[in-house]
């Protein structure tokens, strides 16, 4: 057990001094996650809104597919994007593999169904009288939509936070698409995997603590936001 104890001591030292590039790794993780969440929100929020407010043929199928995608294993996303952007792939000429961009693409695909599905349920959960109330008060179509979004705001924020929590803690796609290159694509999760396998527990535990706090923080925020809908 000594190695764990000394690992923990080392972790505290690293967190305090910032040696071994701890915060650089955290920075890559956060950068990739934030970019992916922004992109996923840009597509997922309107998609969720559209699904919640429109009736069309095949809607049930779309909703079912969306909910199924929530369970997509991250390594499969990694595999799929890898196949597209590797040298032999159709997008190989873009030379994206093992860059932060590749990771952002993978994490966006992971986050998109989460943002869209949770946004959809956020709009479904709000009161059906909102639209009618806005209309009786003379709202335009755009004002009605804005009112609906405003009323569902906590649910929408919860959708974004949930996606962030999933993306920042994920290792499969980050490893396959980023390649765990120090100073460039090494994230908290890939670094922990590498350092553990090397037996360097200090850095692994230090990053683990930060990751744990981030994930817990996101989860607490998620449930706090959901609480507003009661």
């Amino acid at each position: 057990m000594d190695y764990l104890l000394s690992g923990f001591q080392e972790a505290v030292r690293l967190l305090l001094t910032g040696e071994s590039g701890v915060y650089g790794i955290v920075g890559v993780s956060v950068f990739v996650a934030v970019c992916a969440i922004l992109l996923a929100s840009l597509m997922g929020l309107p998609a969720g809104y559209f699904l919640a407010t429109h009736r069309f043929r095949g809607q049930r199928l779309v909703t079912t597919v969306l909910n199924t995608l929530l369970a997509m294993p991250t390594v499969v996303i990694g595999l799929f994007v890898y196949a597209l952007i590797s040298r032999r792939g159709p997008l190989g000429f873009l030379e994206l593999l093992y860059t932060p961009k590749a990771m952002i693409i993978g994490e966006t695909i992971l986050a998109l169904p989460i943002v869209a599905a949770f946004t959809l349920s956020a709009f479904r959960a709000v009161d059906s009288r909102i639209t009618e109330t806005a209309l009786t008060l003379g709202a335009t179509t755009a004002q009605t939509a804005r009112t609906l979004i405003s009323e569902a705001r906590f649910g929408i924020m919860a959708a974004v936070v949930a996606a962030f929590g999933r993306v920042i803690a994920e290792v499969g796609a980050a490893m396959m698409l980023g390649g765990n290159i120090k100073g460039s694509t090494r994230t908290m999760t890939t670094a922990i995997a590498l350092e553990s396998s090397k037996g360097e527990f200090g850095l692994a535990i230090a990053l683990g603590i930060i990751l744990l706090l981030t994930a817990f923080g996101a989860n607490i925020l998620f449930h706090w936001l959901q609480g507003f809908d009661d």
Partner: protein
Amino acid sequence: MADPIIVVEHLAHRYASGFHLRVRHLALSPGRTYAVYGANGSGKTTLLNMLALLALPQEGRILLEGRPVHGADPARSRRYRRRVTLLMQHVYLFRSTVFENVAAGLRFRGMAKEAIEERVTGMLGKVGLAEFAHRPAHSLSGGEAQRAGLARALVTDPDVLLLDEPTASVDAAHGQQIEEILRETCRQRRMTVVLSTHQYEQAHRIADEVLIMRDGRMIEAGPENVFKGSIEDTSQGAVVRLENGVTLRTDAAARGAVHVAIAPHEIRLYRSTPSPDTANTLQGVVSAAAVDGDRIRLDVDAGLRLTVHVARDAFAGMDMTVGDTVYAAIEASSVRAS
């Protein structure tokens, strides 16, 4: 009378449930208050939703100041809704402050901030919610929420205000407050008010005209037992002198020119003179009798034309037919000023 502000023509809508709403003709005059009276499920809410363009009828049309309303066209229906607004039975308040809720309609209209501030503050004072302005709307009680909803509708200064059972889900004190606010506003503004209610008393207390709905149909008999007259104090207490010369004792607090209404089910009919304790006894002749669901509708000519509702079971024992001379007994409390 002025040209109607809203006319409904041949409105019909059939629901999958089998419910069938039919309103052949309905004209709403500016400045008048209408009560749509009927039991739950008679179609009151459906009719109001159609008047608010929240539901589009399968057949028929609605005209605003003589021009047909195109409910399916967003821009046109918005112009209509900015003049004709609806307060739902269970009001929905937005997740913001009471002030922001009441301001919503004015913000949708792009009104300047200072004007909104002034009008909303004034309106909150009117409905007795001034000190609640900056509280979260969701912290209000049911009655307060209903008043906030009423303020939100009134502050937009609509030409037509539709109210779906405005007092059904609040306690008596709040209900009275809401009625007073409505009366006050209608006096100040020539606003047309259409409210639905299942309380016969309320319908006659508030409205100039009572529209009766049953099973999705508007019963086109017109208002029953509503007479013009004036109330004055006499040695025998308050008396209303009707236009046709009949005088009736009344408990109404109003004085001067009024409309009085007598609920058809509150009139008692007797074959012989009833007890002298009764405030008003009118002798008349039964001119018509008709079965109307579980009751009998009788028309009695007694110097004024009275419509009387008698429960079917009770009628069986009364031994009364058309042409019979009867005595109509009306308590002073049943002669209401409206």
